[in-house]
């Protein structure tokens, strides 16, 4: 029988939640890395027992953790006792060394002046679709790194940060983070990334050169609402069977592209608010998408204090509220951009975590919800692995 493993990153550690295919009884393990901020935990699609985690602290900086046994044991790549004894000499301990390529240069600061690029943390880890040793990291200040040795060392794909528009990129309220990395399952050379607040970008040559893909985005809060860059994209999602169709939750507006991001159109339709953070796609229905509307950018909680996931079965514009099992009064939590995920069972399971520490699961594509856990630290990220 299939199993599901939910990887949860929180403000104070990581948790691993497991259940069988019925998704009714859950086992909770953790906290792993207790007391540290865990921005993201994600498993390799090639080897599900290979899991990467971004562990970070305002005191001690960035740590990369790796598990090779499905999240039971963890280590910092390249610094294990076994490697210390190896004939290759002392390990370098560079799994947390994220150094920008060349002279870092500057980007736009909040006051409009130029500010040097400074590495702060890894927001998102995206394991390769083809090689468990290959993993990408989206970081703050916005840049894309990759490791081809299982996280032991990292190299910047600097063509992105060195794009002509780089000096115009500016941090959003949460920092200038590269938070979304989408790998095209049909084209190894193509990937998409998104940055708050620069926008979305695409490479068609494996990360050497990048193109802003923000035509059609309209952001009234920036000097030129239709600018090439400067849009606060919160999240982009794709269905693996249709990699040219992208869905975006922007700061305000839910958007859709059917031409690999070359143009976007708004599909917010009847949502009670088109502000929000996560967006995701049903595992088996590429036109079924999910968002969690949030009241506004200054009131980061659900409209009418009712926690509602909205589902569109038409790829946007027509949305239905999903409320069964979710709090429908006095609810003031947020759902962050990396805190929603889906499994690939049938029916598809949908999962999300809140800043109030709840992780909700729906085993029936959103019709009914139950909390798996209710009192974790604030949830930063949720990823789901469907296991045989």
């Amino acid at each position, binding site marked *: 029988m299939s199993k599901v493993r939910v990887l949860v990153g929180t403000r104070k550690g990581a948790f691993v939640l497991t259940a069988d295919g019925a998704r009714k009884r859950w086992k909770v393990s953790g906290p792993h890395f207790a007391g540290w901020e865990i921005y993201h935990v994600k498993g390799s699609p090639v080897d599900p027992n290979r899991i990467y985690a971004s562990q970070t602290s305002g*005191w*001690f*900086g960035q*740590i990369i953790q790796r598990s090779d046994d499905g999240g039971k044991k963890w280590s910092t790549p390249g610094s294990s006792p076994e490697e210390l004894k190896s004939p290759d000499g002392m390990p*370098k*301990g560079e799994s*947390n060394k994220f150094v920008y390529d060349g002279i870092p240069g500057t980007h736009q600061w909040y006051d409009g002046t130029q500010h040097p690029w400074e590495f702060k943390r890894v927001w998102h880890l995206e394991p390769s679709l083809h090689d468990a040793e290959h993993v990408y990291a989206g970081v703050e200040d916005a840049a894309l790194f990759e490791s081809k040795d299982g996280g032991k060392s990292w190299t910047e794909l600097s063509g992105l940060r060195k794009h002509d528009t780089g000096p115009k990129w500016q941090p959003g309220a949460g920092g200038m983070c590269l938070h979304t990395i989408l790998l095209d399952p049909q084209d190894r050379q193509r990937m998409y990334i998104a940055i708050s607040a620069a926008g979305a970008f695409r490479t068609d040559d494996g990360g050497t050169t990048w193109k802003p893909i923000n035509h059609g985005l309209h952001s009234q809060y920036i000097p030129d609402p239709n600018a090439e860059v400067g849009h606060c994209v919160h999240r982009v999602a794709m269905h693996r069977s249709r990699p040219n169709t992208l869905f975006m939750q922007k700061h305000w507006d839910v958007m859709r592209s059917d031409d690999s991001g070359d143009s976007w159109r708004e599909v917010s339709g009847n949502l009670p608010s088109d502000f929000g953070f996560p967006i995701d796609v049903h595992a088996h229905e590429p036109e079924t998408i999910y968002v969690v509307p949030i009241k506004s950018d200054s009131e980061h909680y659900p409209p009418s204090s009712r926690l509602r996931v909205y589902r569109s079965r038409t790829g946007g514009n027509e949305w239905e509220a999903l409320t069964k099992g979710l709090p429908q009064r006095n609810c003031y939590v947020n759902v962050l951009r990396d805190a929603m995920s889906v499994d690939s069972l049938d029916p598809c399971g949908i999962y999300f975590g809140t800043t109030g520490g709840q992780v909700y699961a729906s085993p029936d594509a959103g019709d009914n919800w139950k909390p798996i856990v209710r009192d974790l630290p604030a949830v930063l990220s949720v990823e789901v692995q469907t296991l045989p």
Partner: protein
Amino acid sequence: MIRVVLPPHLRTLARVDGDVELDVNSCVTQRSVLDELEARYPMLRGTMRDHVTQLRRPLVRFFACGEDLSHESPDAPLPEAIAKGSEPFVIIGAIAGG
């Protein structure tokens, strides 16, 4: 033998209990102690000082014999009591964050 006291989070990261004991063969300074500590526990690299600049991370402090040496030169000799191991070199995470 140099004794080093790590903050709890770094103790967990390095998987050590209690004080760390190190042999430092050169002049005992902040730099030589940290170099040896990082060689023994490579997972600590980058957590106390920057990988490239080698500057102390802002919220990490170094104490010895009751004195805050965080702003001393990393190449200044540490007190004899540290070099002899009668007092520990203490690394702490600053009390910060409100």
